[in-house]
C-alpha cells in the first residue's frame, strides 16, 4: 500500500492560517491502514487545529469529513458538493499525494493543502512499522531476484549484486536499512537459484519508470463501455 506520514502540525497550521472555513478530508484507503489519514487522524488533526485557533484567538472553523478513497471521482463528489454548499474556503487532504492532486484538479478556486508526506509503496514489517518494497519502476524484474526488488530496496538501485558497502546485511547508508542485495542473495540461496545471479543484467530501460515521464494505464474494455454510455446519453438528449 501507499505509506504516508502526517506532516508536523505546525507546518499544516501555517498552510491553512488565513482561511476561515477549512475542511479536513480523510481517506479510507491506504491512508487509514497506515494510520496517517483515516477518520481517527482527521479527528486528531481537526481537534488540534481548533485548539490552536482557540489558543491564538483566531476565528477559524475546522470541519471534518472522510471518503472511501480520494482517488475516485464518485467518492470525492460529496466533498465537492460540501465545499460548495458550506462555503469551504480551503481543503486539507489527509490522503496520499494522489488524493491531494485529485481534489485539486476538481476544485478550481479552492486551494487544497497536503496534510501528509507520501513516502513509498510498502508493507507492514511489524505492527507500526512499514518498509518500502516497490519503486513503481513500471517493468518488474522480480523474477530475476527471488521476488525482492533491487530497484526499491538497494539504495543505489544496483542490478548486478551488492556494492560491497554493506555490513552484516545492513546498507552503508544506515544500520536501520537492510541491504537489498543481501536479502536477494539470501533468498536465492534458499530457492537454490543463486547461480542465476551470474548472468549479467544489462543496463536497463528506465523509460517505464517516472524517469520516462508521468505514466498512464488504460483498460480499453472499461473505456469502451464509458464511451458507449456517452453515446447513449448523447442519443437520449
Amino acid at each position: 500500500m501507499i505509506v504516508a506520514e502526517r506532516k508536523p502540525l505546525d507546518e499544516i497550521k501555517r498552510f491553512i492560517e488565513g482561511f476561515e472555513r477549512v475542511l479536513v478530508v480523510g481517506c479510507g484507503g491506504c491512508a487509514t491502514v497506515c494510520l496517517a489519514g483515516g477518520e481517527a487522524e482527521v479527528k486528531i488533526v481537526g481537534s488540534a487545529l481548533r485548539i490552536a485557533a482557540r489558543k491564538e484567538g483566531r476565528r477559524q472553523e475546522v470541519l471534518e469529513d472522510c471518503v472511501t478513497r480520494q482517488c475516485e471521482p464518485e467518492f470525492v463528489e460529496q466533498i465537492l458538493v460540501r465545499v460548495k454548499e458550506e462555503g469551504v474556503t480551503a481543503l486539507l487532504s489527509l490522503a496520499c499525494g494522489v488524493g491531494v492532486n485529485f481534489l485539486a484538479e476538481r476544485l478550481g478556486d479552492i486551494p487544497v493543502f497536503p496534510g501528509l508526506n507520501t513516502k513509498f509503496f510498502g508493507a507492514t514489517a511489524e505492527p507500526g512499522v512499514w518498509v518500502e518494497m516497490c519503486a513503481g519502476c513500471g517493468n518488474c524484474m522480480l523474477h530475476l531476484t527471488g521476488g525482492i526488488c533491487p530497484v526499491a530496496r538497494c539504495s543505489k538501485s544496483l542490478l548486478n549484486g551488492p556494492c560491497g558497502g554493506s555490513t552484516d546485511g545492513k546498507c552503508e547508508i544506515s544500520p536501520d536499512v537492510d541491504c537489498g542485495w543481501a536479502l536477494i542473495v539470501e533468498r536465492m540461496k534458499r530457492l537454490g537459484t543463486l547461480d542465476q545471479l551470474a548472468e549479467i543484467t544489462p543496463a536497463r530501460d528506465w523509460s517505464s519508470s517516472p524517469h520516462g515521464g508521468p505514466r498512464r494505464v488504460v483498460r480499453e474494455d472499461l473505456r469502451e463501455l464509458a464511451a458507449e454510455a456517452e453515446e447513449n446519453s448523447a442519443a437520449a438528449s
Partner: protein
Amino acid sequence: MDIDVEREAPCLVACPVHTDTRLMVEHILEGRYEDALDLLLEANPFTSVCGRICHHPCEESCRRVKVDAPLGLRQLKRFVVEATTDYRLRRRTPIERTRREKVAVVGAGPAGLTAAHDLVRAGFGVTVFEAGPEPGGMLGTTIPRYRLPYEVLREDIDDILALGVELRTECAVGRDISLEELRREFSATLIATGLSESRTLGVPGIDSHGVLLALPLLRAILAGGGAPLGERAVVIGGGNVAIDVARCARRLGAAEVTMACLEAREEMPAWEWETEEALEEGIELAPSWGPKAVLSAEGRVTGVELKQCVRVFDEEGKFNPAFDEAETTTLAADSVVLAIGQAADLTCLKGSSVKAGPGGRLEYDAETMGTSERGVFACGEVSTGPGAAVEAVADGHRAARAIAHFLDTGEVLKQPPREELPAIGELPEETVELIKARPRVEVARAPGETRVEDFSEIERGFTEAEARAEAQRCMACTTGAFVDEERCVGCLTCVRICPFGVATVTKTAAMPEEKCQACGLCAAVCPAAAIALKRYGTERIEEDLKRLLSEADASSSSVLIVSFCCLFETTSRKFLDENREEVAETGVARVLVPCVGRLSVPDILAPFEHGADGVCIIACAEGECLYPTAEERLGARVEQARRVLEEIGLHGDRIALWRTQESAEVSWTAFWEMSRRHLALIKAEEQKEAQ
C-alpha cells in the same frame, strides 16, 4: 452489527424473571445505586427477599466461573437494597386506578403479591385475601429469620401495598368468604395459595408423641414459640425445608441433629450452600436412608429405624425410590420431624365449582394458567409444584399478564411456561487463559458453633468498597465491541492490539461477542473510527464535557482541568456525581471512565477544544489494570497527544498521567492539586512569553 438475534448475558437469561443483573452491576460501578434499584424492582417486586435467599441461578450461569468464580450477584443485589433505603421510601407512590375491573387474589405469598403488584400498576383494582395474620406466605411464616429477617420481607411487601393493593388478612377464602362470592364481586380471581401443608408418612409409630411436621414446626418457631425437640432430633428429608428445620433445631438447643434422606449426598435437592452451612453448624447427614419405622417407648419417640435406599429415581427419571429392606440402621432421637414434601391446602375451593386436580392440586392449564372455571386463574406453587421464591415471582408476572389479557379481551392468553431467551456463547478456553483472575469477594461467616446460638442473621451485606470491588469482576457480557462495516478497511490494527485475541479480519473486522471483554482498546486506536462499544462508548464523553465545562469561565485566571479517572479505583460514590458548582469551585471537571485505557487521542484532546487548560488522566494503581497491555497502550497514546500539543505550540505537560495510589478517595485530590499548580505555572510562563 450481528446478524443474529441479539443475545443476552447468561445471568439475565438464567434468572426466572430475567433481571438484567449485568446492567445492575454496571449501575453499581457507575454509582447509580438508585437506578439499579429501579431496574431490580421492575423485574422483581421481591428484590429485598431475593437479595437474601434467592438460589441465584444467575450466579450458576455466570461466565466468570471458568476464570475464577462467579460474580456474587445476590450479595450485590442486597447491597443495592441496603444502599438505597431512603430512596426506596421516597419512590413509593400509589398508582391511579384507571380500570373499572377488580381482581381478587387468594393468598399473599410472593406469587400472589407479584400478580397483585403488576395488576395494580396496570390500573386495575386488586384485593388480596390472606388467611393468616400477616402477608408474605412461606417467606414470612416458614423461612427462618437467620436467613430472612422479617423487616427485610416487609420492605418488599410495604412497597407493594403502597401502590394501592388492598389487603385483607385473617380472611380465609373457603371459610370466611367463599370463592363463589369472590367470583361474583370481582372480574377475575387468582388462586395463589401455595403448598402450605406438610406431607406425612404412613410408617409405624408415626403417631408417637415427638413426631412433628416441618411446616407447622417452622411456623411455630417463627411465631416466637418453638417445640421442645430435646437433645437429639432426627429430620427426615433432604430438601431445603429439611435443612431449615435441622438448623432451627440446633438453634433450639438440640445437641445432635441428623438429617436422614433418601437421596445420596450429591443428589440431595437442598441448595448446596445450605447443606454446607448446615454441616458447619454441626448437623449430621445420613444420606441414602429412608424411614422404616418410628421407635417409641410409652408413646414417646425414642428413635427412628431407617432402611437403605438404593435408588431414588427410576429409568424414566420419576420419583420411585427402591429400598434394600435388609440393610437397616437405627438413630436415637427425642424428636422426629418430617420434611418430606408439601401439599396444597385447597380449603378455598369449598363450595365452589373450581375443580381440584390430580395429586392434590388444582385442575390447571399450564399455558393459560386457567382453572376449570372461566375467570379463575392459579399461579405459584399451588399449580407449579414446589419452587424457589423467584420462580414464584415469575409465575406471578405470568398470571398478571394472563389476567390483564383476559380483562382486556375476554380471551385467555397462552404463554410458554418460561420465556426462553438466547444467551451469549460460552467463554472459549483460549480467552479464559488471558483474563486476569481475581478472587471473589466473600463476606466471612461466623463459625457454625457461634451461629447456632441464636436466630440472628448469619450473613452481612457487602460494604460499599466490597460491592464495588466485586462489581469490577463483571465481564460485562454482550457489551463488547462491534464494527461498522461501512467504515472498516480491514487494516488489522484491532487484531494486533486486542490483548485477548478476540478480533479477526476476513474482509472486515469482527469481534465475537462471547470472547470480547469490552476493554475498548481496539476502539481507541481504530484508524477508521469504525469500532464502538456497546458498554461505554467514549463518544459520550464529549457531551459530558460540553455540559461540565459550560459553567466554567475560560477567560478567568484560574485553571480549568478535565480529569479522566479510572472508575475501577473508586471505593465509594464520592467522585461519581456530577456537580457543576463543584467544577466552578475547584476547577476540576471529572469524567469517570471504566478503564482509562479506552481513551483515544481525540478523547484526550477534546477538552482543550472546549476551554480546558489541562487534562489529567488518572489510571489505576500500577499493575492493577483489568486489561493486559492497557497501561502501556495508554502511555503511548498520551505521548502522541502530547506531541500534537507541542506541534501547535502548547506544552505537552498540559496532559498529565497519574497512577492511583491505594484508592481514588485516598489519592486523587492530591493529584488534582498537583496538576492545578503545574498548570498555573505553565499558564504564567506562557503569559510571560507572550509579553
